[in-house]
């Protein structure tokens, strides 16, 4: 099967710039790639959340379209010397969907034993009292910004455990990275960014009001 042309942020930027400039971008086009990228990142996350709630109309409960999901290898964890909890750094803060949707799957894995059991995800409002309740055997995790905290139910060490997490991603490390994006989301992102850029650039419009009668003309 022929390989498909990947969607990168560079492709999205180029398309928007051509649309705005009505031709190949020239020096007249005062918007930089980085600026358009900021608009795209913003539109991407906004569009994602909207699509999730749209999907809920079909499914009856919210779910993240699979096209947005990416599994990241977080690697080895570090231990906080005071609390003794373990932590790793996520590639980006999760989007604003509840935990279980923004970040929906976490596990340890290594080349010898394969994939371990799922890590229990603890929503932020439960973290404060979770230690008061009985715990199932395993590891639990909670998220603060782009940091994921972990602790084993029996206090076991998580040293040298390779953490993997699956989350909806909206960021990429470079413009040429392939974006996890369903194709039907491109339209929404495009419209969102173009509308903002038109507003920002104060682009002149040639409004043709065809419905106005000829009336008296001075010319």
């Amino acid at each position, binding site marked *: 099967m022929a390989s498909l042309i990947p969607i990168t942020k560079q492709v999205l930027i180029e398309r928007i710039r051509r649309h705005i400039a009505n031709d190949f971008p020239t020096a007249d086009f005062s918007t930089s790639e980085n600026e358009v990228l900021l608009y795209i990142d913003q539109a991407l996350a906004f569009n994602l959340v909207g699509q999730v709630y749209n999907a809920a109309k079909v499914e009856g409960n919210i*779910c993240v379209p699979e096209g947005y999901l990416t599994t990241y290898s977080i690697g080895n964890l570090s231990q906080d010397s005071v609390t003794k909890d373990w932590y790793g750094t996520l590639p980006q803060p999760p989007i604003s969907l509840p*935990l279980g949707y923004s970040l929906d*799957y976490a596990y340890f894995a290594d080349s010898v034993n394969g994939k371990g059991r*799922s890590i*229990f*995800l603890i929503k932020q409002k439960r973290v404060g009292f*979770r230690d008061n309740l009985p715990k199932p*055997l395993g590891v639990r995790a909670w998220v603060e910004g782009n940091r994921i905290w972990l602790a084993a139910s029996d206090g076991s060490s998580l040293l040298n455990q390779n953490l993997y997490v699956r989350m909806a991603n909206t960021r990429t490390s470079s413009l040429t990275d392939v974006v996890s994006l369903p194709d039907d989301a491109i339209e929404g992102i495009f419209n969102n960014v173009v509308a903002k850029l038109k507003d920002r650039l104060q682009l002149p419009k040639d409004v043709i009001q065809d419905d106005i009668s000829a009336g008296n003309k001075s010319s």
Partner: protein
Amino acid sequence: MTSSITAYTPLMTICSFALDETGKSSADLDTMWLLGHRALTKLSYDFAGQTKTVRIPVDSNKTVKLPNDCISWTKIGILNDKGEISTLKYNSALTTFRDNNPSRLTDLTSDINSGLGNVSLVPFYQNYFYNGGVYNLFGVGGGVVTYGDCKVDEINRVVILNIDFKYDSVMIEYMSSPELDEDFQVPTYLQEAIIAFIKGKLKLGAREDFFVEAISARRSTPKKKFILQTITQVLRESNGMKLRS
């Protein structure tokens, strides 16, 4: 041949069934497990506690500690040579005074002598028959041969034995609370009741559904069912007139 339907199912599996049914996210699994834990607690106290028998050494102060997972005891006795538990007499007159203290025996200083010579000093109540005569003995039942007396102190979680109890250990049969090992191993007939409890607590189902499922589970309890072996045993052991196969 393996089957995914077995007599016992891990609580986490049942909670994952509930998670799948309700369409919640994986971050709700921990909540589901806690609700399953509560359902299991309730069902264990209602009817689903599993019977367990243990042999526990008698402490030097003639008490025996109840197992930690003991919800309620059903039998306390010693083992006879036929492999049966010969139960001790439950003697409510035994005192719980200092029953969790190692010096219990020396602290039980008597105020009266319960021997035969004092019959005239106590209310006339003779409860013990031996060798053709009746006597007054406190704390010892008459007519039934037992190998000792016991009383259970539920607060201090100990079984109190008579101070001259002769044996090194006692057998205790009791309803146990579920044990969290790798996970709770739940009798599979409780599965739907636990799921109904979870859904009820999450307002995704009616509270009454739990009671319906719990009654159904109780009826489904394998050991409650009348099996063919039981019927044939009743026929064989009873003396009435009936058809025999």
